[in-house]
């Protein structure tokens, strides 16, 4: 099996789906001939031509509104937002329009589309090239939200997302765009939306995470094993909405301890939801509070981003505290 990175896996998924279904079109800033600033759409323009892959004017509201219109007509648009930080000009179109179209029309009009966008920090991108806006979208009924951590999942989930009948926010962990490499089967395969993956089995602590933080959490789990002989069950959520609460609860009921790790700011972040949902349903299994290791409630910094981002150190410290609760 070929070894790919996440960008290549995304590119592969797009190519396969475009081949399979001529309703799939790709649009966004610089995605055409140039192939995108992260090169995720490279080669698609040459293969499928300007009617299927095209550059847009610099207007995110226009990109998403155009995609909505295309979806209403019956196409399957896959718009790219260059950085998740720049999705807000399209917020109204996403939240008030795409997300509510099916409901408000009594199921007549639908907006199947996949909004791909790189998210997260760790590339020295400062305020505006590092944000993790997933909570805004998880809170918005009508959207699905996906955040893979590795090439294999990225490809299978993107294919599922493109075939899904609902608008999907597809968050790509840009810090590990190239660093995360794995074997990726040739040809199409799907990973079901809504299913988490248990990356390591353990008995002492459940760590729930997603995106680039999966790699940090796995490192922390290794350290905890090596240094404390503590075994962690690391869950890669993969889908944030609808999220796989069953897998989380199964694990927490076993380990009795849960930690959420994400980069986004803590307050009202997705970790809050996970914490609340776990406590609501597994309170009597808990040997300590659900712990959140997250980005801080500040704009994303530049020089100090390594202090901002949850680190192996912060995770292990928090884990030890919880284990001693």
């Amino acid at each position, binding site marked *: 099996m070929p070894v790919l990175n996440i960008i290549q896996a995304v590119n592969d998924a797009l190519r396969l789906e475009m081949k399979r279904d001529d309703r799939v079109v790709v649009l966004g800033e610089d995605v055409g001939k140039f192939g995108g600033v992260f090169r995720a759409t490279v080669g698609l323009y040459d293969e499928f031509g300007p009617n299927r892959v095209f550059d847009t004017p610099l207007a995110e509201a226009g990109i998403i509104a155009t995609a909505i219109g295309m979806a209403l007509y019956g196409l399957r648009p896959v718009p790219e937002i260059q950085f998740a930080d720049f999705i807000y000009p399209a917020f*109204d179109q996403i939240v008030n329009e795409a997300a509510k179209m099916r409901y408000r029309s009594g199921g007549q009009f639908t907006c199947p589309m996949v909004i791909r966008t790189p998210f997260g920090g760790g590339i020295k991108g400062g305020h505006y090239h590092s944000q993790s806006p997933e909570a805004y979208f998880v809170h918005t009924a009508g959207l699905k939200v996906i955040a893979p951590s590795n090439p294999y999942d990225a490809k299978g989930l993107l294919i599922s997302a493109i075939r899904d009948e609902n608008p999907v926010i597809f968050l790509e962990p840009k810090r590990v765009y190239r660093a995360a490499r794995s074997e990726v089967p040739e040809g199409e395969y799907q990973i079901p939306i809504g299913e988490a993956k248990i990356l390591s089995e353990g008995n002492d602590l459940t760590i729930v995470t997603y995106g680039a933080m999966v790699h940090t959490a796995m490192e922390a789990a290794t350290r905890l094993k090596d240094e404390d002989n503590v075994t962690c069950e690391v869950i890669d959520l993969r889908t944030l909405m609808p999220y796989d609460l069953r897998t989380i609860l199964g694990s927490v009921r076993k380990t009795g301890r849960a930690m959420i790790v994400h980069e986004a700011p803590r307050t009202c972040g997705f970790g809050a939801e996970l914490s609340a949902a776990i406590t609501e349903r597994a309170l009597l299994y808990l040997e300590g509070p659900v712990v959140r290791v997250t980005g801080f409630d500040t704009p994303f910094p530049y020089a100090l981003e390594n202090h901002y981002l949850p680190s192996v150190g912060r995770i292990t410290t928090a884990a030890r505290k919880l284990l001693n609760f």
Partner: protein
Amino acid sequence: MLDFKAFNILHPDGTLGEEARNNPSLNPEQLLFLYRLMLLNRRLDERMIMLQRQGRIGFYIGSAGEEAAIMGSAYALDERDWIVPCYRELGAALIRGYPLFQLICQFFGNAEDIVKGRQMPNHYGNRQLRFVSISSPVGTQIPQATGISLAIKIRGGSEVVLVYFGDGATSQGDFHVGLNFAGVYKTPTIFFCRNNQWAISTPTRCQTAVENIASKAQAYGIEGVQVDGNDLLAVHAVTSKAVERARQGGGATLIEAVTFRLGGHSTSDDPKAYRDEKQVEQWRQRDPLVRLRSYLINGGHWTEDDDTGLEGEIKEQIQENLKRAERVPPPAVDTLFSDVYDTIPWHLREQQEELEGETE
């Protein structure tokens, strides 16, 4: 405001102007068809506004005074074409053949409303009729219409898209991005601005420093034309031309129909609080319905008696549908949870059970 120079065919007094010669008119049969619907539109509005006052429906948005703009343009389309309305284009729905009963059920938000009682009155939509789901946020539909028309172009279709919005909407960013994308991609889109002089209490001069909204088309490399919005013939002629151009690959047009909102913004609004009755009176003189009736009667196609008969018919038609609609129960409670997604995810299923349990 009344001496604007917009394109006109049918004068306010119901006589034809010079331009009639250069423009294929509608034949009497067509005109009568349109007149009937215009009158239905007007009476339906009046009736629903009354129902709102009586507390039998929650809210209503009328379109009195703007029927010619709305219906003259919608009538220029084929069935295959798409309409992307805002909340004030009841007339376009009627032209499209939107069943009256369906509309009234939407106003009641009852179990037979095809949008399942999920939206306020006037926010309907019908996929079969290619009449897109209406939403409240001003302007969002404009770039969506560009998207539909770009899809048509990409797929080599021959349809065009007609999108409606008000003068207020031209201030939104979405107006800009919608027209700009249309210019860049040369899409088959007709951007139809009902300049009814007001956005709630805000006059058009507070929306833009230019007199002529149609002239904004230049900024996007598309056609722009201003038309007397109370003149059914002129609106139809201008829109037909734009449709033709769009269908032949000539790209988009921005049409500004200069007209006037005779009533309140909605039933929540009292326009006396912010505008001069004199202005309203002046525009009442230009009532598109009266104008068309005069023309039809002058031309011998219609009589006062016909009109009295039609009024009776319409009254009955509305009454009957209302009666039926008022007997329809509200939507079932489980419709609260469907259509958020194509299938109901676990958390909504749980919430549904919770609602059933907690309200037992």
